[in-house]
């Protein structure tokens, strides 16, 4: 009984001194605490705080609502007919977003909606201070979702050796010789103008066609351009604030 204790009591003293030394050393060092409500926390730019909506980019395609595992996205829209721009031309229809709401009491912050949005209407924002006293108040409509858009950080720079973004590559390509005049009229402006603006009219036309025909060609461009998408968020950057304005706005 006493035999195992004798060596242990001999070995206890260095351990006790080590404990005292460790705590004394920590006492002399700066603390790790950040006083959160007074000092803003340092969040990495890709933090998943809240999902912001850039309403201009949304085509009410419902992909996000359908992919959402929690079914926490609510979208209402109606179709509007745009009169033909040229005499004798065809009237176009486009979707108009009536309601876009995310219920953050259901959201599990998986980010699938942000990933799946083909038009970059949804963005992650590091904002996280939107707690409510009532769980029902966590259902945020599109005006509130749009308010978070300025807090979305700009996308990170591309790797030095990476390929150019698809849009830039397309824009830099020398224009093709006008061969098929009829088809090229719609295709060429796409290439030469900044893509974000150019794509929208094109997309707006598409919903006329069956959705099934639209999807197969679409996934390719977004899939390429997800990492290399500076052109689209820049369309949002004019409104985008710096991190300072973000914290200021929150306060």
């Amino acid at each position: 009984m006493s035999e195992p204790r004798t060596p242990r009591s001999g070995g206890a003293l260095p351990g006790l001194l080590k404990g005292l030394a460790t705590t004394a050393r920590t006492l002399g060092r700066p603390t790790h605490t950040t006083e959160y409500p007074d000092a803003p926390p340092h969040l990495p730019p890709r933090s998943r705080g809240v999902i912001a909506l850039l309403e201009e980019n949304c085509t009410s395609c419902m992909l996000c609502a359908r992919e959402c595992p929690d079914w926490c996205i609510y979208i209402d829209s109606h179709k509007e007919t745009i009169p033909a721009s040229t005499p004798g031309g065809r009237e176009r229809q486009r979707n108009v977003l009536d309601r876009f709401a995310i219920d953050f009491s259901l959201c599990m912050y998986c980010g699938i909606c942000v990933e799946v949005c083909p038009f970059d209407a949804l963005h992650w924002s590091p904002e996280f201070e939107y707690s409510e006293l009532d769980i029902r108040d966590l259902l945020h409509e599109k005006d509130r979702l749009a308010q978070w858009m300025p807090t979305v950080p700009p996308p990170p720079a591309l790797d030095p050796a990476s390929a150019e973004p698809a849009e830039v590559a397309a824009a830099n390509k020398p224009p093709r010789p006008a061969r098929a005049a009829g088809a090229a009229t719609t295709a060429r402006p796409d290439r030469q103008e900044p893509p974000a603006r150019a794509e929208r009219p094109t997309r707006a036309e598409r919903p006329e066609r069956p959705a099934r025909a639209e999807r197969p060609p679409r996934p390719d461009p977004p899939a390429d351009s997800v990492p290399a998408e500076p052109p689209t968020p820049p369309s949002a950057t004019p409104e985008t604030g710096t991190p300072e304005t973000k914290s200021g706005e929150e306060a």
Partner: protein
Amino acid sequence: MTDALEVTLRSVSVLAAFLVLPLLVGQAEHKVMAHMQGRLGPMYAGGFHGWAQLVADGVKFVQKEDITPAAADRGVFRFAPAVALVPYLVAMAVIPLSPDVVGADVPASALFVLATTAVGILGTLMAGWASANKYSLLGAMRSAAQLLSYELPLVLSVASFCLAAGSLSLGGIAQAWSPWWLLWQLPGALVFLVAAVAELQRPPFDMPIADAEIVFGAYTEYTGLRFAFFLLAEYAGIVVMSLLFAILYLGGWQGPFSDQVGWLWTMLKGLVIAVVIIWMRVAWPRLREDQLQHLAWIVLVPLALAQLALTGVWVVVSA
């Protein structure tokens, strides 16, 4: 008339010290422990680094409901916090900060302090028994066993100081102190410090209130102000034991300018010891019940007896 005035004045100042010094130690514990763990501790209450945190805690305790369990022994349950608290108040009254600054100058004050602090355990025992709660009872039994074991080395080490000084009065002991004591009374001082921390049931000797095993020991059923009294008793105990250590082993008010600021020296030395007691809490894990008893009977009692023998031989030889 002047006698009555003096008694009132002394009582009020002892009461003020009793209410302020434990809060100082508690605040020091908050801050020192926090920084030893890489935290900041309280920062808001009172504005400047949370200085009023314990005042705020006191206000909170006052507001809480005072619950007496239905099965509890009502009278004993409600009386226990006072029994735990008052002995330390009495002890503080006779501890001298300097030859002049003392609540009541009692001849055998060392004996008196030891006797009164030993009464405090009765409060814990009463609380544990009267709560009608198995955790409370277990905690009280552990307290009793622990205090019984550690009272002996504590008394033996104090006896060694008394023997060395040739006085039972705390003032006399501090007057007889010489720097040599730091060397030849060192074993006794270590025994006193360890036994004092064990008497206070502070970590690493907090087996009686080990929250992982028996909730909060004898204090499990207490709420509100009565619970706060137990906490206050613990911190008052730290103050008493730290001042005792400073007077017995560190020479009390002995130091430069001791004629003018002797009380400050005693307080400073006591504060250092209080910080050491806090430091032990942060750095060391809790001792198991059997390790606790083992330490008391196998290590501390023989060490205290050896110190007592050494002191006795030295006193006889040098006399």
